[in-house]
């Protein structure tokens, strides 16, 4: 092979990958910033009032004002706290929140300068496992934040948060396991490709409707509830509620460290919505996608836009549920996680396995 061609193709794909990384990073932060704006607007509309509408047209510059406010506050480290851990904790929270967006397929392949480039930062074979692992590490950010504050309320909040997060990870993994059984692979791109056919194989339905939610409604419900619990969002926001724990694990933080904790929560929300959309709602596949098969760039662009519409719907769902339901008491939360969701997820898994074996015995294919 021509060495110049090799270097040239390497260079194109390298630059493309770097562009994708920077774009995804920017999109995550931008979406999280405007999710704060969206949260305030949606909360206001549901409460018969307007949201912020003073900063810029329709209040669109409000997140920038909030960010600026966070920077201008006094950055305070309590004297009796563990200084190194105190500074590291928001960093860990933000790091794990942003790292999960690396394995998500944002769109199908695009054609650039004669090369097909998948719109994904890292197409690892253990995509879902990577995401579950990173979410588990995310618990550390909160635990360390609570411990390093040297404050009994923060510690209580951190303990509650960590026990809540590890309890709901089990049910989350079990519900995703059923999807993995059906798709035959942990790779997120394979899971999305499996949703590109027509629903149940019926020929009168267009391509791109074979979404996993029609096969796993119970699994979707369990995963949704666990996603609410993992991101510490209402009704599972006991770790950070103001009425019970002052501020929970972020009581002692100020300025940008607090900004990082709050921002990491919104980035987590964004990434959970993305994972929900990818695994259950078809990711970047949309009805009628085979009509655009001859124009890969347009297909990728429309797929990306459709994925974003799904993500925005899920973020709206997060906010809708937050402003509707009162929060769970701690023992009710633990009861739900261990004694309701795990048995349900196991039943879902057994049912999925039984149906798959039945299908294999009838049709001879998995």
């Amino acid at each position, binding site marked *: 092979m021509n060495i110049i061609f090799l270097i040239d193709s390497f260079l194109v794909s390298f630059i493309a990958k770097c562009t994708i990384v920077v774009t995804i990073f920017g999109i995550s932060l931008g979406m999280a910033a405007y999710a704060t704006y969206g949260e305030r607007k949606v909360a206001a509309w549901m409460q*018969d009032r307007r949201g912020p509408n003073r900063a810029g047209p329709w209040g669109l510059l409000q997140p920038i004002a909030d960010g600026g406010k966070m920077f201008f506050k006094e950055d305070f480290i309590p004297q009796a706290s563990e200084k190194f851990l105190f500074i590291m904790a928001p960093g860990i929270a933000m790091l794990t929140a942003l790292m999960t967006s690396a394995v998500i397929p944002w769109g199908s392949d695009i054609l650039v300068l004669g090369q097909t480039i998948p719109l994904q930062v890292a197409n690892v074979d253990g995509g879902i496992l990577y995401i579950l692992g990173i979410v588990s590490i995310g618990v550390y950010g909160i635990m360390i934040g609570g411990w390093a504050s040297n404050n009994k309320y923060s510690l209580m909040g951190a303990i509650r948060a960590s026990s809540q997060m590890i309890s709901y990870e089990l049910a989350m993994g079990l519900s995703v396991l059923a999807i993995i059984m059906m798709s035959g692979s942990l790779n997120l791109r394979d899971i999305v490709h499996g949703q590109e056919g027509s629903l149940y194989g019926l020929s009168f339905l267009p391509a791109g409707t074979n979404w996993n939610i029609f096969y796993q409604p119970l699994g979707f419900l369990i995963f949704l509830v666990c996603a609410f619990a993992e991101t510490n969002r209402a009704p599972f926001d006991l770790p950070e509620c103001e009425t019970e724990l002052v501020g929970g694990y972020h009581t002692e933080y100020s300025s940008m460290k607090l900004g990082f904790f709050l921002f990491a929560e919104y980035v987590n929300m964004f990434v959970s919505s993305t994972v929900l959309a990818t695994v259950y709602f078809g990711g970047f596949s949309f009805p009628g996608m085979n009509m655009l098969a001859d124009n890969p760039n347009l297909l990728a662009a429309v797929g990306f836009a459709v994925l974003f519409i799904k993500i925005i719907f899920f973020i709206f769902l997060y906010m809708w549920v937050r402003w509707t*339901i009162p929060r769970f008491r701690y023992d009710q939360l633990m009861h739900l996680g261990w004694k309701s969701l795990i048995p349900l997820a196991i039943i879902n898994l057994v049912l999925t396995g039984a149906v798959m074996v039945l299908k294999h015995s009838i049709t001879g294919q998995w």
Partner: protein
Amino acid sequence: MQALTNRSKVVSNKQMSLMERIYLPAILKGMSITFMHMFRKRATINYPDQTRPIAPVYRGKHVLKRDDKGAERCTACGLCAVACPAEAITMVAAERQKGEEHLYREEKYAAVYEINMLRCIYCGLCEEACPKEAIFLTDIPTPTYTHRKDYIYGKDMLVEKMDHRYDTSKRQNHLVEKA
């Protein structure tokens, strides 16, 4: 035994039905209610572009009135300062000189008259205490400032301008003469 009050409620210890224990039907019902609220009319008004109607004797900023000939009515007697529950009013009195008869009504006048609008509670007791019908509260709300010193109103902010008289007839005592 009879209940001691007629407001007692019977507490029910019934177990939750299956539909209640799933939580989901109740959650969905609640979510539909919040969703419906998004499409209703908002209760907020865009202040300061829109304001709500106020009473005719609304107590806002203070004004030191002049009489019909243009002389200041305030004689620095200090009754408003004594009446003020928040101790917001301070004044320094001075004697009227030969050539100043058209400026001040009586021989004593207020050379320095200050109201600290941050201390003021807009109760109107100074208006009731004044024997010369000099100080009144208008229906203009105090604007916001960013520095504390801007809130201390001196005579330049309080005495009404000659060409811009405030109508305080609704607040004025009916026995006082017009002059």
